[in-house]
């Protein structure tokens, strides 16, 4: 075999290289340069992001089709990179805090490894590769969740995470084994797709599909596979929470789409459409219902992210057109959610306050943070002229494109749910702007990294709805990769 094939997986190589550099730097640099690590990594990663965004995708399938790097995958990776970059920025302050400072190298390395795993998930066209990617994306996260040694919550979150994660991967593999039974002996996506298309609708297949949904739905935290989410988000360090809530979700969503549309597309309408139908409705609704009551901001964001995942999954119901909208939605979701998390972590790093009640009258002391938070909330709630509005409408449009009445009803339910979500997002706005009384958070100046992160997110929220650049990018990527959409 010729090793030139590796050249085709350039994004992975870049991340891997970055990982090595950071690792070596972290290992061999003296105490003096330690503090350089954060800006060093962040800047390098920023460059990597730009690079991945710019370099054209090879578009070829290598290792006998185990791995492809088509335009869509690359676009997705680029979007994820942006997320990670913002996470790095906003966590810069936190990594300097004395309990983390010594171990911050590990933080970056683990994040990079998981990112690498996600790349594999995205590009995998063979279940073995996919599983490897999935696991390498989820196992290091357990370590990251446990990163706050001093905090008990961190440990509890970690144990909850690891146990459920292993359970779900076990279920996933069990499901895979059933699929394998029907696959005609191959684990390549393409072969399985043919086998399924020609094969019969056996109970084995159904159970296999259900387990697959469960297995990947775990990472997307779809209801009822979501229960770990809230606890883990609450316990994990805020940087990790934001990472979990956006980046790993995005990757999983993309992989989910690839697997179900490309592999099981043949049995969409008669088998898993209805499974997803139920799951999506449950996800959106239950997520909203839980979010209504939350007082702890991180937990609140956890449930909101659950219902957002439901909206993301709408894209799965709409074919390739849905994929484009879904990628755009993920991008917007990344900027909005990270914007919110940037504010939360800024306040937490400064004052350690996490309860929504602490945000009362925030605008009196920190007008800019309040402004950013408000925009983020509006965008998450899908209110024009912010990006969230456009992403929501685009995904709804794509879902209704098939014109089946059932999907119209699905959209209607989703729309009605937006009312509930608007309610609890407005609760935050209310706390910030309307609640009487003096501010509980004193005025402070947030660190450079956080400020840059917030600015990036606000810019994304404001501009990338009004300017359709990103959407066109995703659309073209998907179009060149998988052909005509509408």
């Amino acid at each position: 075999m010729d090793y030139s094939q590796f050249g085709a997986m350039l994004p992975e190589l870049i991340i891997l290289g970055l990982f090595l550099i950071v690792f070596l730097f972290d290992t061999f640099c003296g105490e003096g340069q330690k503090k350089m690590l954060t800006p060093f990594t962040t800047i390098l990663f920023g460059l990597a992001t730009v690079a991945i965004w710019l370099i054209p995708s090879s578009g070829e399938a290598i290792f006998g089709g185990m791995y492809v790097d088509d335009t869509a995958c690359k676009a997705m990776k680029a979007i994820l990179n942006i997320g990670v970059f913002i996470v790095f920025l906003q966590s810069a302050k936190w990594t300097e805090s004395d309990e983390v400072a010594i171990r911050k190298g590990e933080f970056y390395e683990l994040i990079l490894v998981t990112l690498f795993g996600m790349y594999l998930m995205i590009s995998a066209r063979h279940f073995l590769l996919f599983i490897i990617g999935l696991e390498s994306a989820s196992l290091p996260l357990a370590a990251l969740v446990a990163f706050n040694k001093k905090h008990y919550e961190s440990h509890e979150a970690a144990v909850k995470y690891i146990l459920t994660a292993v359970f779900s991967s076990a279920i996933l593999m069990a499901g895979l084994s059933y699929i394998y039974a029907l696959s005609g002996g191959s684990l390549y996506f393409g072969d399985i797709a043919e086998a399924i298309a020609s094969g019969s609708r056996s109970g084995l297949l159904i159970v296999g599909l259900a387990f697959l949904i469960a297995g990947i739905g775990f990472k997307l935290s779809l209801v009822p596979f979501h229960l770990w989410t809230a606890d883990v988000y609450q316990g994990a360090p805020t940087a990790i929470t934001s990472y979990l809530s956006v980046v790993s979700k995005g990757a999983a969503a993309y992989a989910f789409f690839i697997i179900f549309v490309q592999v099981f597309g043949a049995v969409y309408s008669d088998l898993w459409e209805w499974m997803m139908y139920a799951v999506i409705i449950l996800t959106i609704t239950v997520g909203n219902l839980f979010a209504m009551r939350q007082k702890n901001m991180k937990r609140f964001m956890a449930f909101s992210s659950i219902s957002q995942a439901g909206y993301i999954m709408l894209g799965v119901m709409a074919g390739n057109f849905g994929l484009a909208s879904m990628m755009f939605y993920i991008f917007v979701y990344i900027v909005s959610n990270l914007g919110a998390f940037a504010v939360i972590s800024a306040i937490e790093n400064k004052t350690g306050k996490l309860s929504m009640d602490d945000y009362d009258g925030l605008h009196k002391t920190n007008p800019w943070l309040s402004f950013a938070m408000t925009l983020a909330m509006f965008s998450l709630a899908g209110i024009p002229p912010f990006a969230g509005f456009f992403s929501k409408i685009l995904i709804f449009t794509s879902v209704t494109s098939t014109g089946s009445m059932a999907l119209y009803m699905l959209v209607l339910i989703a729309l009605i749910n937006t009312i509930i979500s608007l309610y609890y997002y407005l609760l935050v706005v209310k706390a910030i702007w309307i609640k009487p009384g003096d501010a509980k958070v004193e005025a402070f100046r947030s660190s450079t990294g956080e400020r840059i992160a917030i600015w990036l997110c606000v810019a994304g929220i404001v501009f990338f709805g009004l300017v359709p650049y990103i959407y066109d990018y995703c659309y073209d990527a998907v179009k060149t990769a998988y052909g005509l959409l509408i």
Partner: protein
Amino acid sequence: MGITLPILILAIPFTMFLVLGIGGVKMPRKVAGVIGILANASLLAICYTVAFRYFFSGDTQFIVDGVRQQLQVFDVTWLAFTERLVVKIGFLLDPICAMMLVVISTISFMVHLYSWGYMEHEPGFQRYYAFLALFTFSMLGLVVATNIFQMYIFWELVGVSSFLLIGFFYKLPSAVSASKKAFIVTRFADLGMLLGILVLTFYFPTFNFIDITHNTGNVLASTGGATFLGASVLTWALVLIFTGGMGKSAMMPLHIWLPDAMEGPTPVSALIHAATMVVAGVYLVARMFPLYLVEEASLQFITWVGAITAFYAAVVACCQIDIKRILAFSTISQIAFMMVSLGVARPDIHEGLGYMASMFHLFTHAMFKALLFLGAGALIHAVHSNNYTAMGGLRKYMPITHWTFLIGCLAIAGIWPFSGFFSKDEMLSAMFSYSPFWGYWMTMVAGLTAFYMFRMYFLVFWWEENPHYKEHKPHDAPWQMSVPLLILAAVSCVAGFIPFGHFVTWNGEPYDIHINGQVAATSLTVAIIAIAFAGWLYWKKNDKPSLMRQALPALWTAAHRRFYWDEIYLFVTRKIIFGGICKGIAWFDRHVIDATMDAFASMTQFLSVKIKGMQSGSVQTYVVWYFLGALVLAAITWICIL
């Protein structure tokens, strides 16, 4: 004729309204008064010119071989609903219009002059004149209306100006409530009128009076014999339109606002609630008379309403204490008189004598009723009370008022040679020739009229002197107030000799009027008996009245309380509409509809609390959910698919 004068007729009062209304606050009251009076003088001149030209010039555009023409001097589009339903503002000149121009401008001028003395010391003098101007404008616009919609527009405007003038003393709650009552009752009647117009134009889409009254046949045809709840739609339309008239002219059962309207300044009562606005209903019917002729039933309705009202009002007037109220009820009954005589007018009975007669009475009544009101104003001005109990034996103190008032009473009682005699005689003869029953009925009413007028007259001017004249001595009013009295008295004396039939008839063809001796004799005797009876009772202070009162206490109180109409209305509005419907709906809104909306919210909250057990915090329950979820998903699909 040129359009200058007609336009001026509308323009002058409106400009006055704007000038006095906006600039009035700044200008001293003298200036405002002078401006108002001068403007009205010019208005008077113009109106007379127009009227006299119409009647006497003999110009072919006014009269063609003896038949008086209807002439649209101008007619400009104001608002186009559809191609055929176009609202225009115009000036229709015909006999009744010309007559009304004379009446309105005369009385208005008198009142302006009178008010200068009467209202001199009231605050808001300028505002008062502005409102008077507004009223004059609207009333003129009403009478010159070329189409029913223009009439409706100005109908509303007179309503609002009457509202403003009744509520002139806006600090008094009584005045405010009276004005509200007046506006709302008439508004309710106007709703009827609007509906009538809607129905009429739905079948025969035009507003123009001339089109309507000259093509009555087509109107009837256009309805195609459609009926609604038993009556033909045309009858409905006409009766509904007449409802508007009932409201303005205070026919039963919509009369209740007029007595309270006496809360307004007395000159206003003279102008609006005696002479001009309240006869708008009569004018409306007269205006559309040819159409009413088509529907016998509608005329019947008018007759009945008029007759009942006339009697009711006369009876009530006998038992009032407040002299303005007495006059108000007498106004109601007199207008009812006109209504009846319109109702009994038929072309085949003396060429529609009733029509001419009612217009004649409208004219004379305007004069002597204005006279009476202004006289009453003078009295009130002198003794600062509305009740005859505060008066008595005033003839020595205020001679001018006394004599003019007497003339007014004689006129309204229908004593020869005063104007009332002639007009009333025409009306009665019309009624007799239509049906003796109505004839006798209305004669009786005429007798009652004579009685209550002279009851008031004697109680005010004879009876016995009120003790507190000692401390402050009543005296005649200043010249601004006396002059109008004298003028009007003079008119009331001579107006009867006008050959009215030459001017105003239902179809424009003039004819001579002749006294029907038998009718005249009857009514005259009845009147004289009534007056004598009144004199016997009230000439000198005695206890006969109180004895009578004790004889029939129930009747007296009932009549005194106007047979409890107000109470009934209060019950309906307060209890049923406000307490029942409105409160009910408001309650429904808050506790049913709004509650449902809130229920959605609280339901969601409730759910979110209910399902919180799912998030128990223990990994194993999580996994149970997880696993069962996957299995259930699979199971359901399996059951559904295979």
